[in-house]
């Protein structure tokens, strides 16, 4: 295989892992807990910028041509972990703002507006994360220490991303299959009834926001440390809609479906075609991508709203069988 093709494939694998992790996070918030989080990409950006400023070192160290807050050089994997925590914190703060006293349709509007505000702040407040130009020369984790051939390094990084995605799947399956997930679905389906059964809807939805925000933060960190540059153009609000499309296509509420939807929609349609030759006038390929994404959303909402892999509605014996089986298996 040629080096260019290997680079292309490794990049695709990294993008897929990033998108799948993000989609699981958004699926927990929207698909399972019913919070239509139109500001999701902000959480990913929070993680991405966090990982960037924690690896770039002080602003002055790179010659002072980039201006950003809190520069540090922390060893891998601390920046990635902190990115997850910051994503969760952002989600918690945003959740506190929108989940209190706002009806669900207004929540979505406020979240979309928050996403736009975040873009404007990052673009215009130059000292925060270098404004419109964004951050560049973000080091790749352990690149110097490992001293590998660049192509081999790409594959090692791609493997790390896949391993993290596998871990993410494991965590998400635990979260959604447990009674906790059932309570979230109950709140999504009928909030007043869930409250009348002793569940605080705001608390549960906030928890889902925080866990989803953690996934978003980690996905942002993985992306940023791979591509090495990150600016306001990398996380515009349509990215959230792209992730929503992936979830709708795969199957809202179903982690396996979301894996499939993210791999196909988010990675192949959007990221994959970036490497295809430009056709027509400049920008046409990009426009066609978004038109395709929009048509796909409409088609699924009309003809198959449950997605390719519908949410599982009945429980398996393994999850809630008669006590005899459970005791034998549980000991």
């Amino acid at each position: 295989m040629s080096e260019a093709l290997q680079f292309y494939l490794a990049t695709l694998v990294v993008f897929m892992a990033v998108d799948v992790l993000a989609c699981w996070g958004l699926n927990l918030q929207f698909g399972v807990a019913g919070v239509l989080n139109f500001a999701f990409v902000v959480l990913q950006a929070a993680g991405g910028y966090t990982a960037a400023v924690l690896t770039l070192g002080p602003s002055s160290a790179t010659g002072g041509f980039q201006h950003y807050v809190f520069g540090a050089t922390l060893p891998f994997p601390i920046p990635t972990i902190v990115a997850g925590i910051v994503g969760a914190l952002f989600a918690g703060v945003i959740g506190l703002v929108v989940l209190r006293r706002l009806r669900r349709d207004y929540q979505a509007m406020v979240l979309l507006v928050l996403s736009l505000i975040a873009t404007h702040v990052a673009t215009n407040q130059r000292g925060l994360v270098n404004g419109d130009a964004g951050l560049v020369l973000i080091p790749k984790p352990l690149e110097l220490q490992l001293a590998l051939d660049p192509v081999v390094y790409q594959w090692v990084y791609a493997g790390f991303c896949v391993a993290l995605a596998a871990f993410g799947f494991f965590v998400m399956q635990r979260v959604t299959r447990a009674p906790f997930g059932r309570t979230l679905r109950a709140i999504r389906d009928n909030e007043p009834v869930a409250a009348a059964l002793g569940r605080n809807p705001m608390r549960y939805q906030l928890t889902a926001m925080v866990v989803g925000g953690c996934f978003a933060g980690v996905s942002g960190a993985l992306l940023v440390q791979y591509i090495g540059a990150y600016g306001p153009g990398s996380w515009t609000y349509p990215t959230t809609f792209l992730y929503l499309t992936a979830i709708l296509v795969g199957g809202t509420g179903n982690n396996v479906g979301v894996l499939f939807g993210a791999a196909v929609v988010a990675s192949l349609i959007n990221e994959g075609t970036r490497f295809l030759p430009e056709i027509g006038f400049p920008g046409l390929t990009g426009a066609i991508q978004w038109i395709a994404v929009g048509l796909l959303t409409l088609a699924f909402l009309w003809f198959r709203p449950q997605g390719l892999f519908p949410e599982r509605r009945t429980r398996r014996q393994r999850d809630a069988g008669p006590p005899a089986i459970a005791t034998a298996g549980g000991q």
Partner: protein
Amino acid sequence: MSSELLSVEDVGVVFGGVRAVDGASFTVRPGGITGLIGPNGAGKSTLVGVLAGALRPTSGKVVFDGADVTGRPPHRLARAGLIRTFQLAGDFATMSVLDNVMVGARDGHDSLWRALAGKRAWRRIEAERAEEARGILAELGLGGREDEVAARLSGGQRRLMEVARALMSRPVLLLMDEPFAGVTPPLVERIAAALSGLRDRGVTVLIVEHDLHTLWQLCDTMVVMARGAVVTHGPAAEVHDDARVLDAYLA
């Protein structure tokens, strides 16, 4: 004071210029089934909203189990044992009947930490709850429908499912908002039988109803409302012969 489980003290609710509830007072003693009746517009549904914590009264207070619970949010009232059912759409439409009923279990095993700890942390209690839920469903004649999606049930069956879920939550006081509305007679009987069974197990039941036929047989105590206030209140047999009840419905 302590002999009452629920006491509604001079509750008033004003929406804009409309007095929906105007100084309603009554008490519910522990045990037994109490009916809250009255013609359309008497303020019953508004009062249910106040009792369940969905509405904050403009004046007056609600005391449940010795504590002033006026304006407490619904989830906190539910945790104290005051469980309500809904007049319309009380189901989790996309979830299975069994899942619907199991959400009723209020034992706190649905936390994030339990979920992250893995199946071992919840499998056994979940299996016990599933068994309990299946038992309740079978008792109410919904055995064999556990895996069906709630939205597929008929209106009456959904009402039964709601009753099952309320039983699952082991209420101290069960507040039922028009449980017989739009339910076919055979299912009305089943729901009534389930409520009698609950009373025998020591649960206090408060039924808010518009339609009276089943209620006179089922209830021990009656509260009659008209135009936002309580007209009369007492043992069902006495209230039945009270001329003021007829007046309330004819006025």
